[in-house]
């Protein structure tokens, strides 16, 4: 059985995420999504208010100041993906279970009962 190494799998997942966010998403449907369609159909779309983040550099998945729409969405997508990667990975690395290295941490993990 040919198993991918953990690093290769990680690289494959990261590469697909960056390709989807940075390149493929340009071809995503720009129609309203299910919720927005329902809001239009049933009549509560008008109650939407502008987000306080609507002037941000990547608001609406478009990069401020970049004219080319493909590049604008690509840069916003990659930037957002990078933010999620950094915040998510940092959080998960901090809260992960660590192998008990000394009697103290072993005792505390036993007393927690998990």
């Amino acid at each position: 059985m040919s198993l991918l190494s953990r690093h290769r799998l990680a690289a494959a997942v990261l590469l697909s995420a960056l390709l989807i966010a940075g390149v493929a998403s340009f071809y995503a449907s720009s129609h309203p999504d299910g919720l927005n369609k329902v809001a239009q159909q049933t009549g509560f779309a008008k109650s939407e208010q502008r987000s306080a983040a609507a002037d941000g550099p990547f608001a609406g998945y478009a990069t401020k100041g970049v004219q080319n729409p493909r590049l604008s969405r690509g840069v916003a997508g990659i930037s957002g993906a990078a933010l999620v990667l950094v915040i998510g990975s940092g959080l998960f690395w901090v809260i992960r279970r660590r192998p008990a290295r000394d009697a103290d941490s072993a005792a505390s993990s036993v007393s927690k009962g998990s």
Partner: protein
Amino acid sequence: MHVPDGFLDAPTSVATGVIAVAGVALALRGARRELDDRTAPMAGLVATFVFAGQMMNFPVGAGTSGHLLGGALAAVLVGPWTAVLCLSTVLLVQALFMADGGITAIGTNVTLMGLVGVGVGWLVFAGVRAILPRRLGLVAPAAAVGALVSVLAAAAVFTLLFAVGGTAPIATEKVLVAMLSWHTVIGLGEALITGLVVSSVIAARPDLVYGARPAMGKRTLELRRSADTVEAGETT
């Protein structure tokens, strides 16, 4: 599915904010059991993949689109508690940096896609797994069923929140019927993507898929035993 500012009134948004904070606090405790040196890096990548997947709107007909929510997908890949944190990270980045989903609606969106999407996706997945034989090949189909139901559940809970705290006076049945009919089609897309991604990762590294562990137990032992046999054969 991202709820913008203004759809729900302030008390409802505050209430979902409290639910979201409580859910994330529980998830921070629960995720410790799911994450170790091997799985923590995967979890960060799964969150990134969900962010990317949510950008990829697919057409569902009549000028409407849908996109992956990713709750069931993340739960099956890295475990339900970690998945809640994955989705919450994605939704926070989307609301603050992409203006996708309102800032006052962060709690609502974490509740809908993080807690309901992940929770229902995982529970349905676990339920389907419990009635099917423990075979690795059945993990992805079970994940797909969880994915479909998770989208419908999130759509139903949005309708419930709208009935309680919607800012426009629209009949609840009207919203419910429209939400469920569109999200049935979107849910089928969610099921397809979830099934394909889960089966791809299982083909590469089944041992790194949280939801495949029960089906892996027996196999790992068999693999080890056959490796021992090979070694024994070589030494003699």
